[in-house]
């Protein structure tokens, strides 16, 4: 009886994570579409000569955003550890102390075994046209610096496109972590099934 309860809980958890995964994909698709349209809108407003691949900087420079891959083991008591983390807008001078804190996806992915997610309530970032709620000045400066390849005075539509693509990067990391959790939950299920057989 106890075993059946555990198995049911794990199945529900798997279905929850799969639901989360599919919602993230929808969110990614709509945010990307918005980003590309904003970019086209900026090109319409500023002109094709100002928004062009010919202006992208070929000088050597370090990446402003990196993905860190953690090989964490599964912890039965505290839940799953995320495998991927995103460090955005790292400065060249301070690579060990990123300007923006790591995305806290642990709160998102830690789920007690019987805690059901309700459809319609998303803990992830939905596709949104609004700027991020709290923005550090330094992050704003890094954003402006990244856009300066197109000129110092750019259209608000280009800034909006940048925010959309930044949201897309975050969503991709969420998708990677969701997939990781989904696959490990599926493995647990398979183990349980083998043990019960």
């Amino acid at each position, binding site marked *: 009886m106890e075993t059946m309860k555990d198995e049911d809980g794990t199945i529900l958890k798997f279905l929850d994570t799969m639901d989360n995964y599919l919602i993230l994909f929808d969110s990614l698709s709509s945010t990307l579409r918005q980003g590309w349209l904003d970019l086209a809108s900026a090109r319409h407003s500023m002109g094709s000569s100002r928004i062009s691949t010919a202006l992208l900087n070929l000088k050597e420079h370090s990446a402003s955003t990196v993905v860190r891959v953690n090989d964490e083991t599964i912890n039965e008591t505290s839940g799953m550890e995320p495998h991927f983390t995103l460090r955005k807008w790292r400065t060249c001078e301070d690579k060990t102390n990123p300007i923006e804190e790591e995305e806290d996806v642990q709160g998102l992915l830690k789920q007690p075994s019987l805690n059901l997610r309700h459809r319609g309530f998303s803990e992830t970032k939905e596709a949104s046209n609004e700027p991020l709620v709290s923005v550090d000045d330094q992050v704003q400066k890094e954003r402006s610096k990244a856009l300066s390849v197109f*000129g110092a*005075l750019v259209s608000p539509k280009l800034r909006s496109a940048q925010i959309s693509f930044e949201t897309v990067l975050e969503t991709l990391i969420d998708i990677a972590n969701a997939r990781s959790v989904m696959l490990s939950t599926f493995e647990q299920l398979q183990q349980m099934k083998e043990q019960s057989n």
Partner: protein
Amino acid sequence: MYGFEMMTFNVQGGFLEAIVRGHRSSLLTAADYNNLCQCETLDDVKMHLSSTEYGSYLQNEPSPLHTATIVEKCTLKLVDEYKKMLCQATEPMSTFLEYITYSHMIDNVVLIVTGTLHERDVHELLEKCHPLGMFDSIATLAVAQNMRELYRLVLVDTPLAPYFSECITSEDLDDMNIEIMRNTLYKAYLEDFYKFCQSLGGATAEIMSDLLAFEADRRAVNITINSIGTELIRDDRRRLYSNFGLLYPYGHEELALCEDVEQVRGALEKYPGYQSIFAKMSYGESQLLDKAFYEEEVKRLCLTFEQQFHYAVFFSYIRLREQEIRNLMWISECVAQNQKSRVHDSVVFIF
């Protein structure tokens, strides 16, 4: 003051005015745009354009088509028409026609300088330049390290030379200096064009003054909105505004202090000419500002054709064609991205 242009204009300018009025009648209509907005693919767009004057320019393009190809071929048509008119124009019409292209020349100079700063290949940059703004020594721009060299090596022999006096420094070129250079050059160009049109007198001076004043005001608003949240200080922003226009000088003083779009709205709503633009937008909605300005510009450009015996029709025609190309670019992007519901966000009907 009008000076009997009816008696003398047709001697030198009558043929070309007839030509440009003929070209005007080939601009796309609302029915054409409605057909284009319903296209499913870029090949459909090409098929619809084949029955227009763009047909001969697009017919040999292979599938799959790209938005950039459509824009490039449509621009080529405009350039061909312009060059045919220029080669048949006499003074002062030829100078007037050349003035129309200086804005593209400035854009090309800035493109080459910015691209070189980013270590791009010069040939790749030359392909992206606007054909109306090309000049002989443009490729030599890549060797300049600062504005003084830019002027001394290349631009001293171009029509842009007189505009450089206000921005010559020995500072190395960087993104902010280049942006200030762009806007300073454009400001000087607009003021020079305005003075030239005033010197022509008659209907040309009257109509072009209104059109250039609107252009100067629109530039001031765009500079203000684009500089919100950037490092550009108020004094530098104020220096980039032109010294003429409906907003000069009191509107400029208010715009220089604006920190968000609502303050810009507050500054402009005092001017009846621009009240109607902001009336179309609800509070907090700045996305439609560009479209509102383009619609107002198209309205003013179309009105120039109601009068004869002046050069403003040439300026209006070039600007209307550029608006048409922008419309086609936007429609093509929406079709290519499968976002047809957004196609009417930025299309401005001319007729």
